[in-house]
């Protein structure tokens, strides 16, 4: 294993010789619930994300999808197994990671540009340089002219674009997204898919995109992981061979898209039923 530990900063190395961007190797994660009981969220979970690959993770609600992301960030530690980034075990929060949250994680007391500039300033970049960079990123997400507005003055889609700029400005090699667009309406969500695909294809980052929306997963990803109802483990993996660049607004009406989505749904459906039955029993 050790000889595969390619240095993380060697983009010219051939893909086969490098360690994958993210590896989860037989990971277990147990929690202690507030009433003192141990609960397994992830069991024997194995996943590989190659450098520059876009991976989507779908599974029934509450199956432990978000837990996988927290393990990759280092905010949370596995109870068993190992999580590796570019061949090295995760130890604390890796600066190469960017994270887009499900809820609004913009700082409400900062205006748009101060939100975007947060990352570079936390990382002690020069102030004027950081602001110039933030302005460029705001232009790329088409928010020029809104620099001094506060998050509550923006629409949901605009807030998400600020969040994308806030994340991408750090130039993450690894991008983790936890149902980032689930709160948006369907039309805005399609626009966000377009924006995300454009940003991602230029950045070349490796992405793990957690969602419960199968069509969203197929639209965006190279590889879709289907998880079982909790405790989550990988049920199956599908490679999505749809050509890129993809047009998010149109792709869902293509026949091959429909076929793929039908195949995966047949697989996912059982788990969704199981998960729903369980959460209704617990209610």
């Amino acid at each position, binding site marked *: 294993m050790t000889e595969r530990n390619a240095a993380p900063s060697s983009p010219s190395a051939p893909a086969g010789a490098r360690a994958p961007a993210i590896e989860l190797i037989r990971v277990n994660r147990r929690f202690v619930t507030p009433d003192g009981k141990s609960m397994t969220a992830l069991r024997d979970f194995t996943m590989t994300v190659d450098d520059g690959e876009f991976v989507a993770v779908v599974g029934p609600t509450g199956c432990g999808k978000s837990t996988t992301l927290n393990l990759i*960030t280092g*905010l949370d530690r596995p109870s068993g197994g190992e999580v590796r980034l570019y061949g090295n075990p995760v130890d604390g*929060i890796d*600066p190469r*990671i*960017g*994270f887009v*949250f*499900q*809820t*609004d*994680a913009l*700082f*409400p*007391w*900062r*205006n748009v540009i101060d939100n975007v500039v*947060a*990352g570079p300033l*936390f*990382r002690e970049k020069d102030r004027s340089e950081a602001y110039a960079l933030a302005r460029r990123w705001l232009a790329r997400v088409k928010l020029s002219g809104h620099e001094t507005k*506060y*998050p*509550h*003055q923006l629409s949901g889609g605009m807030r998400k674009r600020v969040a994308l700029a*806030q*994340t991408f400005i*750090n130039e993450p090699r690894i991008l983790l997204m936890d149902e980032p667009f689930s709160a948006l309406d369907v039309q805005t969500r399609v626009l966000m898919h377009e924006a995300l695909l454009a940003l991602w294809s230029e950045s070349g980052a490796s992405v793990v995109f957690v969602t419960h929306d199968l069509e969203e997963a197929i639209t965006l990803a190279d590889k879709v992981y289907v998880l079982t109802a909790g405790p989550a483990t990988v049920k199956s993996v599908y490679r999505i061979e749809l050509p890129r660049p993809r047009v998010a607004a149109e792709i869902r009406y293509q026949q091959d898209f429909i076929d793929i989505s039908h195949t995966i749904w047949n697989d996912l459906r059982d788990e969704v039923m199981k998960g729903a039955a369980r959460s209704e029993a617990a209610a």
Partner: protein
Amino acid sequence: MSGQQTSDMLAPPVPEFRPGTSDAEIEAAAARAERKRRLTVRFWQVLLLVVLLGGWEVLARAKIIDVFFFSSPSAIAERLVQWITQGADGTPLWFHVWVTIEEALLGFFSGFILGILAGVALGRNRMASDVLTIYIKVFNSVPRVVLAPIFILLFGLGLTSKVALSFVMVFFIVFSNAFQGVREADRALIANARILGASKWQLTRSVIVPSAMSWIFASLHVSFGFAIVGAIVGEFVGARHGIGVLIQIAGGAFDTAGMYAAIVIIMVVALVAEYAVTILENRLAKWRPVPLPDTQ
């Protein structure tokens, strides 16, 4: 007025343009209505004041209420004018007022700053807060005014004892709000800042404290009131100058007009302070959504 001749067989008849329904006219009407509503509110406010004060004065003059206990607006006004022009208790009035304000301000700022520091520090340190919570509860259960005699003994009749009393009044309010605010800070915001690269100190400064700020500000209005209470109670127990001393002297002389006059002065001071706090709050919290005008 329609101009669409082609579909007049099928389309329902276009209603005639009615005067008074253009955008400009509707806006002007709305602005007029709003102005009128505001004037009406102001009118009733002034009328209520006139009725209350006038009623008080009339009842006092008609001897229906006892002026010995309730005084009268004219007597209070007279006493205020006398204090302003000739001073009270051998000292200019403004000096008494200034002494009380100084005590309250010093107590307020020291209590406010230390309250925030202690609240944030303890809110960030789970172990320390679990250990200390019980002691804080015990101290907090002491009614602050009973400390007044002790502080007078400890710090003397001067400024320090009143500042100390104001301080303990303010400190616990701000402390518990800051502590709560830190505890309630949004987990997603904290995670976001940490992943964006914030160090522990940056996290405290740029996420924890700002998100606790709305809690702290909620305590600000109350705590300045308490700062004044602390100063005045301290003056009751023992002091040479201050509004509390004026009330004490007036009470000793059965001078109800003087007592009410002192209360009027305190009201003015408290209202000015309240106004200043509101301005400060609006400046610091300009990121917050403006409440809809209809929800007042």
